[in-house]
């Protein structure tokens, strides 16, 4: 009897095991077999795409998109091993870490996008079409964004448009031409423009929108000299009813984070994801490390308030060189003599002033000593450093969003494309350059009678000033093909020498060369030297090398010339 029960029990046990019952997927988390079948999973997958925007290459915890401008003529980093970008002195090679980091960050994001692009169609019937298209568009946008940066930095790169579940295929990949990749991603962006919403609100704020897609398309087309495509894409964005934020300086602070001008910004979340630029770039007197330094060359390129360069303007006072200047100068750069974060930025005296509990007190001035850890150029970045972070003691874990796309860039793209198409007339100038200038009360430019070359300089000058230190200059000096002229310099000028400060030498006005770079006749008498030399090998340095470790694994990848 006992055995019969036992046998019956066993029969019941095994007979229950039909195929369906064994095919169980986890209920508490997504399963690899079914992932991307529900709207929740699609949402989660699309969230992960935004990881690609947090491109950081070292412990500094600042956005690399932003930091690239500190490897150009307008900004340098502390001149020594661990900090300087090696390409400013042509010292990079294929094993330099940042190249591998960039390669890895973008290809990881491309994989995330490819996964969605490949798997989403399998569950098309589970969700409504609008939602489906939006998720697809977000994935296509991020893939386009990643390929855009890869092609700008490395030139031709392997073009992977599927998930390599069988990774053995990857060992023999070859590079696809940049032109082919660009055609493909521009086409993808048309889908994005058609299917992304005009704006996002609430918890979804920070996702890519129609305007972001248009702005990316305009940027890619501009960088690739497809002028009509760039102008059209920019015009699409200009038709969306977006306007410039009223205050240039505040746009980069907390209160500007969600202004309509911001088309895409890296969003941060308290204690979880944050950026540390206020520490990296800030003054030593308020707890910063002054690793990043805007150059005098950038400072000199700001016009005076009368719209004339400092080489010509009658209101330029060489004794007070930072007064009467384009307001964007003091909004972007901490110049000596400015009060910022309740502290007087002073590089010439051992004592400076700070407001403590409402009272001005003298403090030991850490920005004074001319050593390796104070600013060599005598300037610091102010743009995007919110004094609130200093007061709240959050200069390491700042939540201040990092702007990647903004409306002013779209206007500048439109202007530049129109110049190249030779269609840049006064009405285009008023709608773009003069609109941007009027925000900061700079006089309008009159382009009547100007040649195309003169208009080109005008637009490039405006772009350099408006977008300074936002990560565009790095690419601009490359696509304008004059990096070898401005990035070769044996004597980088730093702070004024004592002889200038005590008045025994007067400061002359600089002259500007055809690339808009200032020059002084006797610069070695006037300025301290920065222990750094700019060097640019035009046959090599326009592109980064393919990371050596990648070539080791994928021998079919050719290296870029010269590396």
């Amino acid at each position, binding site marked *: 009897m006992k055995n019969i029960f036992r046998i019956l029990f066993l029969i019941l046990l095994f007979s229950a095991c039909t195929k369906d019952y064994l095919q169980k997927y986890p209920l508490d988390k997504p399963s690899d077999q079914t992932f991307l079948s529900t709207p929740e999973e699609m949402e989660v997958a699309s969230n992960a795409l935004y990881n690609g925007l947090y491109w950081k290459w070292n412990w500094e915890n600042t956005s690399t998109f932003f930091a690239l401008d500190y490897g150009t003529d307008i900004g340098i980093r502390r001149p020594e*091993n661990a900090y300087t970008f090696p390409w400013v002195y042509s010292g990079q090679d294929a094993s330099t870490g940042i190249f*591998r980091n960039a390669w890895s960050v973008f290809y990881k994001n491309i994989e995330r996008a490819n996964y969605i692009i490949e798997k989403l169609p399998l569950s098309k019937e589970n969700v409504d079409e609008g939602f489906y298209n939006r998720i697809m568009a977000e994935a296509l946008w991020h893939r386009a964004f990643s390929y855009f940066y890869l092609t700008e930095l490395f030139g031709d790169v392997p073009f*992977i448009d599927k998930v390599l579940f069988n990774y053995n295929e990857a060992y023999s990949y070859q590079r696809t031409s940049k032109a082919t990749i660009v055609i493909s991603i521009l086409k993808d962006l048309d889908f994005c423009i058609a299917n992304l919403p005009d704006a996002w609100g609430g918890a979804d704020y920070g996702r890519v929108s129609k305007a972001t897609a248009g702005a990316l398309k305009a940027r890619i087309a501009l960088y690739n000299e497809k002028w009509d495509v760039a102008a059209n894409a920019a015009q699409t964005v200009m038709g969306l009813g977006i306007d410039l934020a009223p205050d240039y300086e505040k746009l980069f602070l907390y209160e500007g984070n969600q202004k309509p001008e911001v088309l895409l910004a890296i969003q941060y979340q308290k204690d979880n994801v944050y950026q540390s630029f206020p520490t990296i770039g800030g003054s030593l007197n308020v707890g910063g490390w002054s690793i990043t330094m805007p150059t005098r060359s950038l400072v000199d390129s700001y016009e005076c308030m009368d719209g004339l360069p400092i080489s010509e303007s009658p209101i330029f006072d060489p004794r007070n060189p930072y007064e009467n200047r384009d307001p964007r100068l003091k909004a972007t750069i901490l110049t000596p003599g400015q009060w910022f974060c309740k502290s007087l930025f002073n590089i010439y005296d051992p004592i400076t002033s700070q407001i403590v509990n409402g009272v001005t007190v003298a403090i030991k001035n850490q920005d004074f000593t001319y*050593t390796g850890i104070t600013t060599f150029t005598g300037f610091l970045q102010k743009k995007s450093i919110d004094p609130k972070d200093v007061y709240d003691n959050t200069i390491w874990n700042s939540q201040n969003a990092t702007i990647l796309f903004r409306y002013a860039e779209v206007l500048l793209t439109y202007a530049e494309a129109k110049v190249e198409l030779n269609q840049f007339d006064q009405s285009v100038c008023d709608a773009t350059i003069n609109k941007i200038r009027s925000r900061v009360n700079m006089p309008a430019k009159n382009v009547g009678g100007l040649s195309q070359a003169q208009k080109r300089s005008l637009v490039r000058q405006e772009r350099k000033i408006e977008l300074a230190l936002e990560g565009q200059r790095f690419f601009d000096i490359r696509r304008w093909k004059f990096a070898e002229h401005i990035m070769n310099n044996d004597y980088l000028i730093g702070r004024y020498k004592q002889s200038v400060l005590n008045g025994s030498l007067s400061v002359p006005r600089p002259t500007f060369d055809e690339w808009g770079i200032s020059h002084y006749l006797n610069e070695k008498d006037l300025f301290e030297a920065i222990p750094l*030399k700019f060097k640019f090998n035009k046959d090599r340095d326009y592109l980064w090398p393919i990371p050596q470790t990648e070539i080791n*694994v994928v021998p079919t990848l050719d290296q870029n010339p010269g590396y």
Partner: protein
Amino acid sequence: MSAEYYIRNTSDILYTEDVPLLVGLNGPKINAFKVKNSGIDLSLSSFKKFGDFSYEVRVNFDDVKNEVTDLYKKKEWISGNTISKVGFSMWSYYLFDTDGLLQKGETQSLTYAGRTPVAGDIKYVDQLTIDTNGDGIPDARDGKLLADDKVIVGSPIPRYNFSAEINLKYKMFDLSVFFQGVGKQDVLMTGMPAWAFDNSSGNIQTWMTDYWTPENPGASYPNLGLSNRYNYTPSNYWLRDGSYLRLKNIQVGFNVPDIYLKKLDISAIRFFVTGQNLLTFDKMPKGWDPETPNNSSYPILKTISGGLNITF
């Protein structure tokens, strides 16, 4: 006395497959490498007693030679400053070769990190890397210092490990000493402990004061300077002999004779003084400890302590 010779072949060493980064995913762990360890173990011990005096000596010597025998699909595996290659020890140092310091009057056109060397800079060696006559053997120099100019120059795996323990006893006194040493070890010095003013905020250490000047051509340190990635790059100039012999422990003790104890109803009283790491013979610069080769962990301390043990 015992002696042992062994060969241990280890296969299927786990290794994360080098999936190309362009796949965007991390590689799986696979069983890949084979490594051969061949070594000897010698130990010798002796114990003798002559009346009130006794001694005990134990000496150990071991050596192991590590050799990669199979590297899966790879020709070589470079990781940072090290390389693993068939026929060489795992994680061999893979660095630029150098030929002392550039002296006054000498010139060298081999630029690196944007710097043309000046007197007092390290003299790097440009290896033969170009094959001009097509025989498959490189026979010309390219005039540049590139990754392919690195050579295998040593190994961080210590060889010829030695230890000796000696215990002496005479009447109520005892003495025990323990020595330990390594006969061959390469230490790569990098970063702030090795490079003066590295990161512009570092210090200069006393051993660096023997820096190069025209008056000090035989210096043990290059010329001093800020922001100098040319000199401050891992090369065999910074690879130092890390062999050492160290008195790890010494203890002198005195046991109070039993006759004094009986009255106190105590079974044992012992006084002792112990010293740790009191003596080291090594060739590293002052401040570098050969036992903590990367100089990054907490340094080995010299300790002297005394004690009294009473057992009731």
